[in-house]
């Protein structure tokens, strides 16, 4: 590790130690369930694994093995240790298998996610029909967070342990096999699988699997065929099992095979058949084998299946080779499940959609998409920084980042101007005048994205980065041109560009390369005539009318004048499709920059036509069946012209960006139970004044944990004994026999006599009024210092341990609320950034120097606010909202330290800048490990920008995922495992352990696929035209993986594209600023009409099909089988009570689903179907549905009558 890195981590750890010391002092006062900080620091992955599992000795053994072998191999090696009893303290064979399986999953998920503890319920040994024994692994839903490979390997590990223990294989009964088949289909339908195995695949796996896969029911829907099986104790889908089988075994078969081959004890020869797809011909869908195979590869590649994508389009490319340009096949999957209000930006590979450009901007990579900020505004502000888009390729989804060093959109304005917009401010001004969005501009995707998704390289746009390398290969002295201040290589004048192309034999500069591949040869011919026949007029003649468009381009055309063509629909469209800027009047098309166009059309300097269609070769005329003029262009133009934008990428809006405080619903200030006494608001103040059944003010009866003071023997519910001040312990007394039980080593509390688990929770009468007043007094606050203090109805933790009310009082005072584990959280969409300017983070170079930053990315000393600096791995940028919330939290924490624990304050924050350098926890959903981060600045975008490694350490990528930050001291003081819900998934999302420093080798390896170079080589661009395998280019285009384990692993993240401001574009997506769903949908359809790349009828169909109809049908179904609820006391009834009124309180009972919520979309849906000319099928479905609604909600004998009835 480099010296500066050591210093960096030392700084973070010093601050961490400081916080720990103070937190320990506070905790030792004994007010909390435990007297010490409950989040252990894990130095490395081995530590985390041990901490999460709670199995001693694992860390040490993992560290030993890590040096010698891969993690997967280590997981298998550990099986032997478990079986031999060297690791873990298990006597039973079940325990040994279970320990090995959990450890394997923990190891493969870097000890971050909750899958090993929550996703595997237990392991059992059961009996086969022939009397032999087999192993049954019982999975639960959270196994999802482990990912396919770890899921699959968990089975392999179980099998390995099984064979070492000499247990037989599982022999599935026929009905069990068929049950797997039905169940996986059911789960796929209900919840959806990333990969849906075919019936024969499932059947094949089930028949051969040496371990029985079983699990908890995760859904309500039940199988209808193979029910009530003896060895399957539920009729519902077992989600965990389905995931392991489909996304684990079926999808990752090649990966598992690698490991089975290494093990002598384990043989899974059937994997080969699974991989080859040569599973015995049985029943279903075996159509013609060729056709079937094609279908299969098409659907699989659409699904983005990692291992199969190569099949995608390589074959087609070869086949089309001689007669047309290489293209990727359109993929439609991203359009599925379109939602009302979230617009489509481009249909699959449709012209006018985003144009693929290769490169990585500094705020880019790791499942993100670079879009020009002007485009964000032009699409009616629907895209903001951090908005998720579902995309056609290379991955499935991405978070949008603003990149202004790529092309912006080309639009036609109401005044007839067709122009490109590269300035976000201009885009904002013109937004309302846009008549048609002809082209969305470029879409930046980094090379690593193709590696990560194993997607063949798609043909690259011809762009400056490529052209300059072409140019450098000519005789031109490019270095001299670079040094010439009068020349801008990236943005040359017409004359210069044309001279470079002709004099040096370089392809025409991309700036003047139009999209010839989007017009046909016939259109090309027609345009040649039109341009030849055009008339030149001086630009001045126009006076003011066309000034904006032409003035913009003043320097180049100056003396030449504007070319005026006769306006015909065909020529107009051709110009638009070529992306030639021009102005349209009723009679004419005026092209200010026309010379590159004319020259490319093969016209002479005097615009004389020099060729006719017969002169073109057959090849050129029939290229792509005559639909692509690029070959014709190259035959007539005096220079080479490349395909400007061969790959278009369709996409639609996914989730909007997020930057919001995380409040439980309803918000909770204190995890203190008050039952129904606080009303629906759970108002502690009200509850304290409430007169309960006893008639005494504030006396409530709640289920709460009983604790006993070891010092004085007093009972109570508080952690600190109210009698003597000692620290109390949970007290377990058996309800039946009254004996007092102690927890065993695994934490279970079991009464041997009554054979059941004992809980410490009991119903207790609490004088809430006194408790509340005491708490107020202790922290020196009055009820007036907050609006409302909200508690909870009841506690869900095992011991029902309440929080001290004082914490809630101070939270309420500072308007922060508590999550289920006692921490205060703020959610933000994750985005990566590898280099920043202090200026854009609203901080100064001084701040950065204080944080230990010394130089900018070029090694220059850091002196100015606008210097570009490489971000350190654990540094994060907070959104404005997050910063405010962190400040409130800091005030709360300081008050807590001072007024409650009676120790010194920690933060003393006065303004936002005081947050700089402070530590936070970053934590993702479904994980159980927090990562320490350091605040270095702020952004107006509603996202959390951080180093990609920081996100990867939390096991997030940036495809629109969001996670939370917590203030360090808040986590240390207020988190307790005692508060966690005692149910499946309860341990997820809780910081059971923290990583104080990021080891790049121990993070989600997706981040290692990010490329970190300044330039992609020319050969790479050329390779894209052959759609080569991205893996072959890893050596030429360095990806981060290269530096793992070296001194350079924390630095050197270069980028190919800069961007002015990482928060450019709208601050919030229109999706969030528009009010009702109807407004959103209107805006969505309005935009669909404007976008050339979007088929608005299809959008309307999809909105109806995937949103309105399911909503209508679902609500109608819900209506006719709904629950009811008492409006007065909130009591719920499965069915309407015969009494009519509430049986509990006599109050008014009402429906939970009303007519209004059932048919709220009916009229709109019908109207949309009509207006957008949807299919008759769709219209009829709506018609039939409307009849059904009327039939339920209208009285036949009292129909609304028309005026005719009275005539």
């Amino acid at each position: 590790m480099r010296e500066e890195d050591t210093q960096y981590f030392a700084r973070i750890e010093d601050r961490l130690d400081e916080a720990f010391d103070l937190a320990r002092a506070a905790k030792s006062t004994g007010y909390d369930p435990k007297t010490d900080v409950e989040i252990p620091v894990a130095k490395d992955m081995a530590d985390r694994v041990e901490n999460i599992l709670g199995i001693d000795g694992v860390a040490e053994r993992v560290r030993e093995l890590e040096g010698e072998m891969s993690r997967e191999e280590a997981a298998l090696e550990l099986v032997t240790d478990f079986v031999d009893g060297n690791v873990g303290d298990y006597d039973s064979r079940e325990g040994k298998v279970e320990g090995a399986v959990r450890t394997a999953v923990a190891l493969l998920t870097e000890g971050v996610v909750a899958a090993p503890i929550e996703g595997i319920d237990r392991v059992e040994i059961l009996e086969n029909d022939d009397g032999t024994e087999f192993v049954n692994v019982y999975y639960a839903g959270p196994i999802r967070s482990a990912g396919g490979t770890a899921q699959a390997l968990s089975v392999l590990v179980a099998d390995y342990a099984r064979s070492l223990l000499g247990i037989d294989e599982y022999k599935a009964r026929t009905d069990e096999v068929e049950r797997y088949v039905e169940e996986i289909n059911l789960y796929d339908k209900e919840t959806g699988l990333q990969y849906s195995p075919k019936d024969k695949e499932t059947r094949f796996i089930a028949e051969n699997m040496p371990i029985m896969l079983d699990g908890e029911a995760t859904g309500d829907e039940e199988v209808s065929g193979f029910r009530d099986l003896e060895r399957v104790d539920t009729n519902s889908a077992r989600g965990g099992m389905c995931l392991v089988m489909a996304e684990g075994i079926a999808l990752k078969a090649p990966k598992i095979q690698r490991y089975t081959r290494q093990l002598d004890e384990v043989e899974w020869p059937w994997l080969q058949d699974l991989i080859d797809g040569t599973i015995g011909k049985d029943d279903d869908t075996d159509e013609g084998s060729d056709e079937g195979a094609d279908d299969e590869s098409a659907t699989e590649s659409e699904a983005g299946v990692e291992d199969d994508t190569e099949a995608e389009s390589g074959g087609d490319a070869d086949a089309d080779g001689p007669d047309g340009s290489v293209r990727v096949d359109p993929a439609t999957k991203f359009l599925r499940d379109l939602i009302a209000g979230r617009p489509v930006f481009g249909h699959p590979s449709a012209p006018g959609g985003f144009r693929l450009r290769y490169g990585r901007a500094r705020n880019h990579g790791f499942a993100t998409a670079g879009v020009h900020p002007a485009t964000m505004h032009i699409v009616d502000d629907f895209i903001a920084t951090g908005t998720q888009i579902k995309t056609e390729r290379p991955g499935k989804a991405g978070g949008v980042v603003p990149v202004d060093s790529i092309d912006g959109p080309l639009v036609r304005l109401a005044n007839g101007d067709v122009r490109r917009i590269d300035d976000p401010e201009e885009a904002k001004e013109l937004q309302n005048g846009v008549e048609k969005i002809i082209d969305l501009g470029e879409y930046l995707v980094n090379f690593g994205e193709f590696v990560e998704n194993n997607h063949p390289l798609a043909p690259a746009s011809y762009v400056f980065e490529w052209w300059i390398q072409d140019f450098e290969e000519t005789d031109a002295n490019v270095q001299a041109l670079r040094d010439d201040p009068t020349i801008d290589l990236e943005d040359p004048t017409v004359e210069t560009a044309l001279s470079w192309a002709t004099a040096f034999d370089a392809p025409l500069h991309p700036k003047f390369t139009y999209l010839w591949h989007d017009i046909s040869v016939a259109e090309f011919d027609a345009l040649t005539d039109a341009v030849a026949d055009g008339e030149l007029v001086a630009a001045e003649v126009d006076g003011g009318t066309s000034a904006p468009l032409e003035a913009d381009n003043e320097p180049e055309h100056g003396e030449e004048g504007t070319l005026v063509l006769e306006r015909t629909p065909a020529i107009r469209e051709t110009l638009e499709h070529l992306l030639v800027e021009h102005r349209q009047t009723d009679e004419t098309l005026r092209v200010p920059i026309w010379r590159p166009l004319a020259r490319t059309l093969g016209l002479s300097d005097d615009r004389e036509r020099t060729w006719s269609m017969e002169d073109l070769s057959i090849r050129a005329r029939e290229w792509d069946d005559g639909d692509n003029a690029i070959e014709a262009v190259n035959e007539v133009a005096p220079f080479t012209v490349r395909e400007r934008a061969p790959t278009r990428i369709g996409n639609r809006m996914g989730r909007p960006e997020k930057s919001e405080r995380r409040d439980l619903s309803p918000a909770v200030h204190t995890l203190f139970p008050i039952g129904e006494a606080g009303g629906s608001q759970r108002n502690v103040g009200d509850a304290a004044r409430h007169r309960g059944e006893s008639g005494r003010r504030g006396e409530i009866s709640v289920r709460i944990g009983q604790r006993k003071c070891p010092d004085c023997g007093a009972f109570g519910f508080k952690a600190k004994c109210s009698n003597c001040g000692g620290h109390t312990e949970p007290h377990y007394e058996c309800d039946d026999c009254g004996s007092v039980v102690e927890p065993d080593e695994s934490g279970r509390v079991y009464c041997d006599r009554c054979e059941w688990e004992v809980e410490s929770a009991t119903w207790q009468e609490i004088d809430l009024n006194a408790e509340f007043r005491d708490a107020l007094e202790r922290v020196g606050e009055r009820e007036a210092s907050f609006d409302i203090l909200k508690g909870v109805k009841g506690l869900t933790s095992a011991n029902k341990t309440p929080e001290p009310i004082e914490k809630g009082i101070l939270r309420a005072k500072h308007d922060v609320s508590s999550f289920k584990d006692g921490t205060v959280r703020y959610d933000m969409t994750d985005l990566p950034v590898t280099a920043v300017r202090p200026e854009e983070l609203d901080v100064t170079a001084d701040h950065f120097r204080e944080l230990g930053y010394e130089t900018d990315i070029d090694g220059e000393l850091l002196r100015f606010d606008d210097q570009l600096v490489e971000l350190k791995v654990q540094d994060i940028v907070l959104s404005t909202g997050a910063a405010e919330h962190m400040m409130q939290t800091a005030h709360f924490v300081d008050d807590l330290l001072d007024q409650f624990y009676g120790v010194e304050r920690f933060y003393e924050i006065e303004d936002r800048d005081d947050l700089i350098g402070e530590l936070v926890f970053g934590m993702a959903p479904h994980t159980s490990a927090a990562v320490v981060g350091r605040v270095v600045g702020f952004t107006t975008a509603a996202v959390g920008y951080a180093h990609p490694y920081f996100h990867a350490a939390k096991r997030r990528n940036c495809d629109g995922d969001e996670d939370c930050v917590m203030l360090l001291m808040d986590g240390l003081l207020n988190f307790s495992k005692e508060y966690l819900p005692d149910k499946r998934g309860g341990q997820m999302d809780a910081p059971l352990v923290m990583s104080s420093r990021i080891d790049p080798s121990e993070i989600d390896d997706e981040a290692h696929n990010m490329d970190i170079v300044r330039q992609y080589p020319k050969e790479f661009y050329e390779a894209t035209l052959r759609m080569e395998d991205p893996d072959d280019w890893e050596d030429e285009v360095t990806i981060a993986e290269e530096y793992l384990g070296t001194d350079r692993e924390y630095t050197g993240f270069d980028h190919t594209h800069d961007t002015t401001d990482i928060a450019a574009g709208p601050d919030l997506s229109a999706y969030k600023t528009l009010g009702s769903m109807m407004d959103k949908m209107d805006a969505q359809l309005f935009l669909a009409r404007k976008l050339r790349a979007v088929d608005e009828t299809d959008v309307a169909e999809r909105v109806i099909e995937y949103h309105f109809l399911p909503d209508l049908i679902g609500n109608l179904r819900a209506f006719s089988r709904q629950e009811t609820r008492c409006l007065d006391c909130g009591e719920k009834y499965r069915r309407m009570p015969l009494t009519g009124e509430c049986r509990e309180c006599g109050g008014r009972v009402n429906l939970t689903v009303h007519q209004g919520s059932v048919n709220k979309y009916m009229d709109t849906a019908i109207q949309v179907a009509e207006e957008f000319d949807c299919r008759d099928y769709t219209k009829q479905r709506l018609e039939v549905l409307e009849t059904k609604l009327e039939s339920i909600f209208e009285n036949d004998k009292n129909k609304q009558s028309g005026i005719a009835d009275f005539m």
Partner: protein
Amino acid sequence: MPLETPARIVRALVSRGYNAEREAVTLIAGSDDPGNTLARVVETVPDDALRITADHVREVLASAPAADPSGTASQSAAASDPSVSGAVSGDSTTHAGQNTPSEAKGSPTGRNTDQSVRSLDIANDMTGQSTGTGEYDDFVKVFRDRYAKLSKMLRGRVNHRPTKALSNMSGGEDAELIGLVDDVRSTKSGHWIIDLEDTTGTFPCLVMKDKGIASYVDDLLLDECIAVEGTLSGDGGILFVDSMHFPDVPRSYRPNTADRHVQAALISDVHVGSQEFMADAWNRFAEWLHTEEAEHIEYLLIAGDMVEGVGIYPNQDEELDVIDIYDQYEVFSEHLKSVPGDIDIVMIPGNHDAVRLAEPQPGFDDELRDIMSVHDAQITSNPSMVTLEGVKILMYHGVSLDEVIAELPSEKASYDEPHKAMYQLLKKRHVAPQFGGHTRLAPEELDYLVMEDVPDIFHTGHVHKLGWGKYHNVLAVNSGCWQAQTDFQKSVNIDPDSGYAPIVDLDTLNMTVRKFS
């Protein structure tokens, strides 16, 4: 579109605005080039004709330019085919039935069409009587009506004490109670607690696991009505149940029968419009009805799902043969025409039909009735009680069977023996007791789903399985379907019984099943 099947020819003609005689269709189908023949027939028929007759077709075939002699030969051969000759006779009646009223309804098969001996009466039809507007009170009303009707059946057996009165009684007393099942749960020690509800409140009833009646608990569905007898616990808080009663059909029930030998065909789930609709089987069935063997069949009852419908499940359009819902009914109507016109037909809607899904389902709206006006078929709501010459037939489509089969142990109800699930409904005297699950309820003033009268025959469909049997002398019939196995059914392991027609002798309630697939 290839025109090899009569169904397709009918559809093609319908799409051009024509109805057709059966024989005309047969003739077109039998011609060398049905497509061409059809086109020429359509060209040559008089402008005012709405119905293509056999004569029209013969004219065209005769005038065939350069008619192939062998083709003509096969034509005549086809015409002499016995099944076709049956069709000829049937057709003439169809024709008559279309245009002229009863006096022309004479049938060469010897079917008795004397309306004075036939009688057909429909009760419980709520079509056009729906008063519910989806308010909370409507729901309360319907459940109160259910309780009123079902508890009346139990009053003779127990002496009901309102739950409110029960809670004021002292411990140890004997008590009897009638209520809707509000909740069933098991205790830690394996006993059962059933909350019974009447119009005054609820009361918990405990069934000990070792009592004989504990086995009844497995069969309970929520919201059915039962009566219990037992003893109040010491503190009066719970009733220890000793015996349990269901509204049920009396064991000694003596069903009504017709005074003469006459038969009814009970079918359902035709699913016209589905790619899996078995047109050939249907045609064979219709042809058979024209034969002497079927001369005693004077009634045809169809228990729902005339057509496959639209939007029943996602991407259904990809599996539809006829995509337009109105065309589906047109084609269904054409298929109905091939049934002898002197058979009386009664139809109720099912869950695939274009009416509301929530039960009771009203009969079709006027537009669909117009399309299905053939044979003056009677259309009534689901469920309805149809009385044929004194025999009471409860027609119900059968959506609740899914739920009964899912909730009850497989020996009590399974897809392989759907009639056993029907026994359960008879025992509960309600066609769809459980609220909140699969079955959807549309609130009306009355609970049309209660079996107020004991039916003599209980006729359902929906599950596409054939099964019949007698429960306390009531004949329960689940007719199969006319749709071959769909991909969905395959995926959930349902092997449908397709192309069967159960035939019941109304004078004896004996049943035979004819297979046409």
